[in-house]
């Protein structure tokens, strides 16, 4: 929660919800959770306006609340949901990906969902159709296809049902559950009992997450004949089909986590493209898609087992795929993927023929690669050498670093301090004697990858905030021109703008594009470092 992160959060709120909500959000971001009265006092807004602002933020899932009993009355505390708020920086990418995965319908659904925060299926579809202005027949077709896409997005968890518990903070929810358990006891719980309670609650939560049925999705059998018989058998023969339908009264929101999982999977596949070839990437992508359905969040260590049920088209396996048979070729490729030194794809020890993906190793490699490229383009390759060596060997002294890296000690010393101030290295002192004199102390350097990533993320937040601020500045500079463009008569007839104004508009759109694209690229880097 650095100042840079706070600034970025605030600027996102300003862009998406305007200056008044920004005021309220700013207080919550900087000072933590508080009730309405307090916010109103600090912001000097009326409490009605504060409530309105909080309503907007809750509607868009960026605020959560908690109720507590204080003496005789209930007090509601409001808090900002930081991860959800920072995810809003990824919105352009979300839109693009939904277009890629679910075509035009997916994009309009995602756009409408983001515009309204949370919606039911009928509200969402009606909104899209109303804005498009179709005649009756085409709109019926459109509704059908939108419904289909919506169901698919829910099924693939890109949209997720909103439950009442979602508007509470996660810690509050956990604490309430714990309290319910401890209230059952007559005596205050011991530490061991407390730990046991936490464990059972934790495993319950995990079970909840890994459940296969999706909230808000009804499964019905297609035909309703009543002649009984073995349903399972008939399902297998394809006489019956399961029909899945989204419940009409459930609200949904965009599930950023699922998007991030998919983006991560593509990035893992891309690792193989760089190391091996495009075919390896295709295969890895297919493997990851098979595993994706059962991934819950990005912090899992291993994927679940994958059976070897891959099927490929002939032409996917490279240009001269005609010579060896597809099956043989695939076997070889999987062998190569498994033997690769990144060791992401591994055979499951217990059973035969099953593979697991080591997601933790993959995310570590991606983070390492990213930090490496940053270091090498900012400082140069000798710095990368030092970093890699320390990652490999753990803690080392200056002299040893100089010896292994084959660089003179005085150069190494300078590089070490540079990297340390950048936040990649950590220094550990080991005194030889009690008096801790510097001359009788070992100074050991090491790289802690997670800490290095955190340090870098903070710098990146700074940059993202700067880019966003600059965007506002560029717009504000041309405020008069922009307001002229928004006039209805100008919008109808653009000859009302003179040549200089048109040129200025072009420059502005160029600048804005540059700044936006850059911020999005950095948001992607942040995602790799923070969420993977």
């Amino acid at each position, binding site marked *: 929660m650095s100042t840079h992160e706070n600034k970025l959060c605030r600027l996102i709120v300003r862009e998406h919800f305007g200056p008044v909500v920004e005021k309220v959000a700013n207080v919550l971001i900087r000072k933590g959770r508080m009730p309405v009265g307090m916010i109103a006092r600090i912001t000097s807004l009326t409490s009605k306006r504060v409530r309105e602002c909080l309503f907007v933020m809750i509607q868009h899932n960026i605020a959560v609340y908690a109720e507590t009993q204080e003496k005789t009355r209930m007090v509601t505390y409001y808090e900002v949901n930081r991860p959800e708020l920072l995810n809003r920086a990824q919105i352009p990418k979300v839109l693009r990906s939904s277009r890629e995965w679910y075509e035009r319908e997916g994009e309009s659904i995602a756009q409408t969902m983001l515009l309204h925060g949370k919606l039911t299926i009928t509200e969402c579809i009606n909104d899209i159709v109303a804005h498009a202005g179709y005649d009756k027949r085409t709109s019926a077709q459109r509704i059908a296809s939108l419904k289909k896409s919506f169901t698919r997005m829910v099924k693939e968890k890109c949209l997720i049902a909103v439950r009442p518990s979602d508007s509470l903070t996660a810690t509050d929810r956990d604490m309430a559950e714990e309290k319910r358990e401890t209230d059952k006891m007559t005596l205050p719980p011991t530490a061991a009992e407390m730990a046991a309670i936490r464990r059972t609650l934790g495993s319950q939560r995990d079970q909840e997450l890994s459940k296969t049925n999706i909230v808000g999705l009804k499964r019905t059998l297609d035909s309703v004949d009543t002649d009984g018989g073995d349903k399972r058998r008939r399902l297998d023969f394809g006489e019956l089909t399961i029909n899945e339908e989204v419940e009409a009264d459930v609200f949904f929101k965009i599930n950023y986590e699922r998007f991030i999982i998919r983006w991560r999977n593509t990035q893992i596949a891309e690792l193989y493209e760089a190391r091996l070839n495009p075919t390896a990437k295709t295969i890895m992508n297919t493997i990851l898609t098979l595993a994706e359905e059962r991934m819950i969040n990005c912090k899992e260590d291993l994927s679940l087992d994958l059976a070897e049920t891959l099927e490929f088209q002939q032409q996917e396996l490279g240009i001269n795929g005609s010579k060896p048979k597809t099956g043989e070729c695939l076997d070889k490729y999987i062998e190569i993927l498994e033997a690769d030194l990144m060791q992401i794809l591994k055979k499951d020890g217990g059973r035969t023929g099953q593979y697991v993906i080591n997601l933790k190793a993959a995310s570590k490699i991606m983070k390492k*690669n990213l930090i490496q490229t940053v270091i090498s383009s900012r400082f140069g390759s000798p710095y990368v050498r030092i970093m890699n060596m320390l990652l490999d060997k753990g803690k080392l002294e200056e002299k040893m670093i100089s010896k292994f890296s084959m660089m003179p000690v005085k150069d190494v010393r300078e590089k070490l301090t540079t990297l340390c101030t950048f936040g990649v290295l950590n220094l550990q002192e080991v005194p030889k004697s009690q008096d801790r004199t510097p001359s009788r102390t070992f100074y050991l350097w090491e790289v802690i990858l997670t800490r290095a990533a955190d340090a870098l993320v903070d710098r990146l937040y700074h940059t993202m905030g700067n880019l966003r601020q600059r965007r506002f500045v560029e717009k504000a500079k041309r405020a008069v021109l922009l307001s002229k463009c928004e006039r209805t008569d100008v919008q109808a007839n653009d000859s009302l703008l003179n040549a200089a104004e048109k040129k200025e508009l072009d420059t502005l759109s160029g600048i804005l594009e540059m*700044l936006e694209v850059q911020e999005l690229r950095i948001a992607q880097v942040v995602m790799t470092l923070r969420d993977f």
Partner: protein
Amino acid sequence: MDFSNDTEKLFYETCLKGDGLTTQEFNTQYPDATAKDMALSVNALLTKGFIEVFQVRGELIYKAIKKEESGKSGSLMGEEQLVYNTIRASANEGIWTKHLKSKTNLHEAVIKRCLRTLEHKAMVKAIKSVKYPTRKLYMLMELTPSVEVTGGPWFTDQELDVDFVEQLTNACYKFVLTKSFPRDNSCIFTTEHTAYPSAQMVLKYIMDKRISQVDLSVDDITMLLDVLVYDGKIERFLNVVDDNWDDEEDTDTDWVYKAVRDKKAESAWQDCPCGVCPVAEFCTESGPINPAGCNYYAKWLDF
């Protein structure tokens, strides 16, 4: 060698046979030599520099110095001889003047004088150590300094030869690269491919192509390859070994190297001014340095 009497000769020759001799042992072998004779001859031999004396657990042990070795120290007298012998004992490691002083128990001025004469006679030489650049070490003229002192092939004039190292590392990388991928760039080797180069093969290539004028060992090449591994240019792994592999073989040779495909090292962050900004630490939203009036941005967005 000239001996003034038979006892001297006898004593020297007995010394030469064994690995050290005490007067008692000599006495049991030759009971007819008197104590006085023996003392005189030992003294004479010592002054001539034919034998050395050591003290082991309170006993004096004499050791013969071979004829060819004694030639030089024999021609020296007293302190000079002592200094010379101490320097000789340090062999190819060399000895620091301070250590020389504490070992010989001589005054600094005396040692300085001795060293000057010894250097003048071209019997010892002064060298510099890589480990302790400020120390002046002395060793016999005819010896070559050990690796510890010179720092191995990577050092010239007590300094790491960065250019030489870089040149050789590049050569190693190029060699490994050619062996890592099939000719056709879009293809890859299957897992059965085992012809990845080991450090020994790289060394052979370097020596055959005469890339280095200096003699290199496998360890030296391994060091270079390790550097390449840390640079992220190559990878090290154990080669697949066949079934009839016996573990008596030295394990060093089993490591083989493979080049990594060149990654496009582009970082999104460095593409905008903030990624390379020298004053980013001072940049705040509304401070004297801020993104609104930033000159770097103005330059970047000027098109």
